[in-house]
Each structure stands twice: as C-alpha cells, then as structure tokens.
C-alpha cells in the first residue's frame, strides 16, 4: 500500500520521537548520579557508574555540555575576580564632604598614581596614591605662605621669603641670617629649645607661648650667662 505524504511524515516523526526518547533515557541513566543526600543515592550512583562504562555510546549529553560551559564560566569568573584589569583614568572629583577636589588617577574606584588635591581656600597637596592610600613624599602648598614637603619622616618648610625650616621627629631646626634655632616648637604648652642670635646672644631652656618661660639660660651679648626662671620672656627676680 502506498503511503501518502502525510503518513510518511507521521512515520518519520514517530521514529524521530522514539530516538529522542531513547537518548533521553540514556541521559537520565547516566546523569542519575546526584550527590545531594549522598547516602540515599549510593546504590544508584554505583550502578550508574558501572553502566556508564558498559555503554560505549558516544553522545554528547545536554548536561555534559552544560557542565563544560559552566567550567568555562567558572574559570572566567576566577580570572575576573582575582585579577586586576581596570585601567587607570584621570579624573577631577569633589570629595564626599565637598571640602576638596581630587585631580589625578583613579583605578578600581580608588585614588591611584600622581594627584593634586586642592581645597576650597586654594591650598594644594601633591601626593602619590596606591589603592586609595598615599605613598611616598607629600608636598603641601599654602598659597602666598609656605610649602611643606614631607619625605621619609623629614619635613621641610619653605617660607615665602625662601627661608627653610627643617623638622624631624618633633624637632625643628632653623639656620637663618638673624637667628638659628634647634628644639621643639609648639603653639601652646611648654617645650625646650635653643635660640642663637646673629648678634651673639642666645637662649637655651624652656619655652612657652613663643617666649622663654620656665628654667633657662640667657647668654647675653656682654657679660656672663644668666640661669634663672623666666616668665613671659622676663627674668624673675
């Protein structure tokens, strides 16, 4: 009996379905290797393992394909998560509190490379950044006043008239044409220091409020050094 075209098509379709189901069956047998509640599946696991070996059917399963794709995703994700691929770009951004503007490199959202920070009064800080933190020397400039450079724990203060004051470990040193100074220096409180004047006089001892105050020795231009208690620069009698 001759088949009509339709019948032929139906037959082919049925055959295709049958084959598909067969493959699916194999799929489900070989992939029946869940490990979740491992204990309950042990029986299946082992049988499955055995059957995989005894069935030499070479057929790429959907699941195997999915696993290979996933492996690719995993490796890519690893490289992305642990690697550093972002490029440094130059930005000019205001700080969160709007107090200063950062002009310089930015990498991974963090300050990076050379940068200049300028606050609203025009004072500027030049610094080098790595992963958001300052590294290396810093240079701070207060317009029309002074430039402060800090490097390896040593500070150099250059004043408007090019006089240079050095500071390291809390001690200030100044060698000027009118006077020289060596010692601590503070705005308030008491500290120790030596000041020599070009005219030959000098003071060595306690200081307070910018004047000799407390125990100290005054070596005048003429005469013997005087040791005594000073109060606001004056010798107490």
């Amino acid at each position, binding site marked *: 009996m001759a088949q009509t075209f339709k019948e032929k098509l139906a037959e082919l379709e049925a055959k295709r379905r049958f084959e598909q189901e067969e493959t699916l069956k194999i799929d489900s047998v070989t992939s029946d290797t869940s490990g979740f509640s491992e204990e309950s599946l042990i029986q299946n696991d082992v049988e499955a393992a055995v059957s995989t070996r005894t069935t030499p059917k070479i057929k790429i399963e959907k*699941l195997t394909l999915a696993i290979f794709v996933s492996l690719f995703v995993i490796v890519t994700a690893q490289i992305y998560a642990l690697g550093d691929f972002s490029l440094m770009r130059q930005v000019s951004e205001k700080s969160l509190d709007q107090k200063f503007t950062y002009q310089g490199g930015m990498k991974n*959202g963090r300050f990076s490379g050379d940068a200049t920070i300028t606050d609203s009064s025009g004072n500027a800080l030049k610094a080098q950044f790595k992963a958001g933190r300052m590294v290396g020397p810093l240079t701070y400039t207060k317009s029309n006043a002074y430039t402060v450079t800090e490097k390896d724990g040593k500070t150099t203060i250059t*004043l408007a008239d090019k006089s240079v*004051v050095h500071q390291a470990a809390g001690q200030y040193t100044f060698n000027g044409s009118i006077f020289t100074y060596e010692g601590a220096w503070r705005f308030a409180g008491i500290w120790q220091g030596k000041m020599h004047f070009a005219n030959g006089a000098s003071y060595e001892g306690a200081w307070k409020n910018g004047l000799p105050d407390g125990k100290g020795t*005054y070596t005048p231009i003429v005469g013997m050094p005087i040791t005594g208690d000073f109060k606001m620069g004056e010798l107490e009698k």
Partner: protein
Amino acid sequence: MKIKWFSLIRILGLVTVLGYHFFVKSFPGGFIGVDIFFVFSGYLITSLFFIELEKSGSFTLLTYYKRRFIRIFPPLVIMIVTTLPFTLLLPSDFRANLAKQVAAAIGFVTNRFEIQSGLSYEAQQTPQLYIHTWTLSLEFLFYLIWGALLFILVFWLKKQGYTGKNLLGQTRFIVFVLAVLTSIGSIIYLEVTFNPNYLSYSYFAFASHAYPFFIGAIVATVVGVRISDKQKARFSNYPVKKTLLWSGIPILILLLLSLFGKFESSWTIRTNLILTSVLTAILIVQFRILHERTTSSEPKILMVLADTSYSVYLFHWPVWLVISHFLPQVFLAGVLSFIVSFTASAAVYYGIEPYFHGKQSVKWLMSKPIYGGLAVVVFVGLGVMGTAPTLSKTERSLHEAAISEAMVSLDQKGQLGQNLYDVGNNINANTSWYNPAAGFNTSTDMRLKQSTSISDKILNSSQTVLGDSVMVGVVPYLATILPDADVDAQVGLNYDSVLASFEKHVKAGTIGKYVIISAGANVTSDMTADVQKIIDSAPKGTRLVFVTPYDGKNKVVLNEFNTYLKSLQNKYNWLAVADWASYIEPQENRLWADKIHFAGKQDVAIDYLNLLAQSLNEVAKSKGKP
C-alpha cells in the same frame, strides 16, 4: 543506604552557623558549624569512594566530578541570580564591587578574594553579600584534589596487580595513612603560618583550613557508611547508653564553643576549630553506631532540614542582610530570615534540583514563561552589577579622611615653621639686648597671636590621642581644640594595639598628661582587661578620657563594654568618659552605611569634638592620677 541520624550532624552545623549570623551576640562562636560541615563532607565523599570501589572494583573520576559539580553549582547560581535583584533594596555600600563579589562566588575563589581584600582594613568595612560562599571554595578544592588523589591511588594499585578484596584493603590502608598525613600537614601549616594580625589568611586559606575534610576522611576509612559484617555485629551490641553519652558530650562541647568561642581569640583558630573537627568525627562514629542500634526511622523533619541544609546555607546570608536592614528587631529578623531561606531552599531542592539530577522530567521548568522569567532575572542581575559602585562610600570616606588629615598636619607644620621664624625675628627686634636683666621681649601683637582661646590648663599640658579609624575621621578637625596634641590614630587599630601604643609612649616618657582613647569599634576579645592595664600603667598625674565606641551593627557587644567604661568614672576621678555611643545611637543615620564611621562629615565630627572637650574639661578639674 541511608544512615539515620546523620541528618543531625548537618542540622547541628546549620543551626550553629545560622545562630552565629543571625544572633551573633548569643552565639559568638557559631561559625564552628562550617567546620562541622567540612568534616562531614570529607567523611561522605571518602565513604562513597569506598562503596564504589567495593561494588565495581574501580573508581571513575569523571562521574565523581560530575556528581559533585551538579550538587554544588546549580543551587549556587540559582541563589545568586535570585538574590541579586533584592540587593537593590540595600544602601549602595552593600553593592560595592558587586560584580567581583559575584565572580568570586561563581568562580569558587571567595576565600582568596577575601584574603586579598582582608589586607586592607578599609575594604573590610562594608558587608559582603556573598562572603559566605568562601566555604564552597574550600569544598570545591577538596573535591578536586581528593578525587584526583584517590583516582591515582586506585589506578596505581591496580597496576601493581591488586584486585577485589586485596585492592579494597590496600586502598583503605593507604587512604588512612594519606588522610592522617594531610590532616597533620594542614594543622602544622596552620600553626606555623598563624599570625594574630592576619587571621583571615589562617581562616580562609585552603592549606591551613583543609584538615577538617581529611579528618572526616580518616573516619571514613575506619567506620564508613558501609561497614563490614564484623563491625555490624559489634555495633549491634554496643550499649545505647554509651552512644548517648559519647554523642551528648561532643554536642555539649560544640554548643559551649559556639556560645563562648569568639572569632578574634587566637585560641579559636589555633585550637577550637581543630577540637570541633575531632568532636564532629566522634559524633559521626556514634551516629553510625546508633543507626545499627535503632529500628525506627528518623523524623521526617530532620530529613527535610538536612536535605535543604546546603541551600539554606547559601540563601541565609543575603536574605538576612536584606531583612535585618529593614527589621531592627534581631529575633524577628532572624526567624523571618530562616523562614524565607528555608522556603527558597525547599523550592530549589524539591522543585529544581531533580532536573539537574535527571531524576524526573520537570516539565514546568522547561516552559517558556520560566525561561522568560529566568532571562529577566539574569538581566536585572547584570544590571545591578553593572550599576554597582566600584567602591563603597565608607571606604572612599576613609581614604579622603586620610588626605584631609595629611593636609591639616602639613599645614600645622607649615604654621609652626612660620611661627618659629616670626617669633625669632620678633624677639630679635623687640629685645633690649644691652639690658640682659630685662630678659627677652616680643611685640604685643605677637603675644596675642601666641595665646590661644582654649582652656589653658589643658593646652599648657601635653595631650596624647590614641584612636582607630573613627578618630582618623576626626583628626582633620581635632586641631581646632587641641592644636598640639600628639595623635596616633590609625585605621584598623583596636584595644590591643592601643594598649601597646600606650605602653610604648609611657616607656618612652612621651605620653601626654591628658590622654584621649577612642577605639573599640574593632572588637577584640578582652577589651576590659586592656582598659584596666591602661589605667594601671598610666603614670602619676595622667588624666584619661575614654570615648565609648559605637557600631550600629554590633550594639549589644559594645553596650556591655560601654557600660563597663562608664562605671569607671565613679571609680577614678581622673578618668572621664565621652559617651559617643549614647549620643549618636538615636541619630545613627548621620553616620555612613556601616554605622560606625563619619569621616568627612564635618557636622558629626564637631559634635564628637564637643563631647571630647566636655570630658577633657571635666578631668582637668581633678589632680590627675594620684
């Protein structure tokens, strides 16, 4: 073969971990649950290996890898894809660097990612949504390495001509030796590389945290899931009382550890976690015996909880972060987080996972709406990652505070240099050099400039400020009240390091007469003892001001500490407490999203300084430490 009561081990691990994450105040040591899971994993994997070897006489590595992979990966991806859209409900700080967090989780390298960022304190200040996936990184590596080792071993033994019973016996012996050696090796590595300042390495690195898996493997060589008839006979005569005792004691100790073993204590990582592994090993043996001794099946609820435990673990942390953000009542938030995580996990385990296991054709999963929905969710997830900030505001503000501090400090040095120069010239010009008895003099202007408007008694004395990252944020403004203070404020400082710094200053004689201490946001194990040591070692005449630390996420622990601090005021009249915590608590929304820092927020910093100034004036009235 289903072993009854093993569910209890999974549940024990889950309960302790959830307790730790939801109710950290009650279960500060609950993270040991992770190690319970590790031991159990090592045990099951190795047991399965032996069963396969016994039944089929060999071990197929690929099938093993595939099985493990299907077990771990799909739920992980489902968890990430479904939780990502919800992170939009959280402040942007939670999403800082989100794409990398997600990539680390999917790539099974969260542990290494954490070690990398653990180097920077600033980066630790923002909660990470998928940090809990670090355990998967370890599991993944263990599966990979252990599977390969076992495969090579079987391959080699077969080449030597071993088959059947001989093969099994020989493999069992070598695996035992191997597992013992790797456990010991991992523990030695942990102890040798241990550094209390770098806990995250010891905790997250595979080499130093792989021993629980291998301890589990040791147990599997002795008492596996499948046991010999001889063992069976012996177990069925084992007194139940003894089993109950020997499982009761480990459970009790594990509970005590989760109640008292704080993470920061160096005991925890060096000894407690090893103890946890050993106790879990004992529990596994006891429950294996109990299986032989009991005939009734275990309650269904235990099975369900154990089945879903992996997914619950995956879901609970992001779910908790979202829920607890909106629900300040910790208990309610905890219960709700569990219900949500459990529901999601049950749906994944019973609804979706069977598809990956090929157990049954889950038709509804293949429907167009599901695919469409999936596409939408993935798309939203990608969008969330794409729009996430690369850096949290908290971290940025800490970096900015460091810049402000540097500018203030350099400017101060500049001012002092200028002042020194001006004073020297002024003295030179105003002193009557030929009348030494009159001493030195400066102009009236100069004198006015020199005197400050702040309380002389404090200013004329010396001040030392020791503080953590909170203080770093204040330093730029500190000069307005204490221009000369010696400041040691560093990001990441805790009471241990403050004590060390304090003692160093005391020894060098550089400690100020007024000492301000602001730390504690980085909780350490024995802060009250550190405070007492500071009080005891303070030189005569010292006045101390402590600032109460505030951390909106860790209120309870800090409250305890702050109550202690405040009680000290009554004991020592030369000590005052600036109660920052009580002041800021009702207005914590003025802080950054981490609920600790406020670097760069001038208005908050000024309030902070006002509190400090009040306390300073208070202690100034006393005569200092007698």
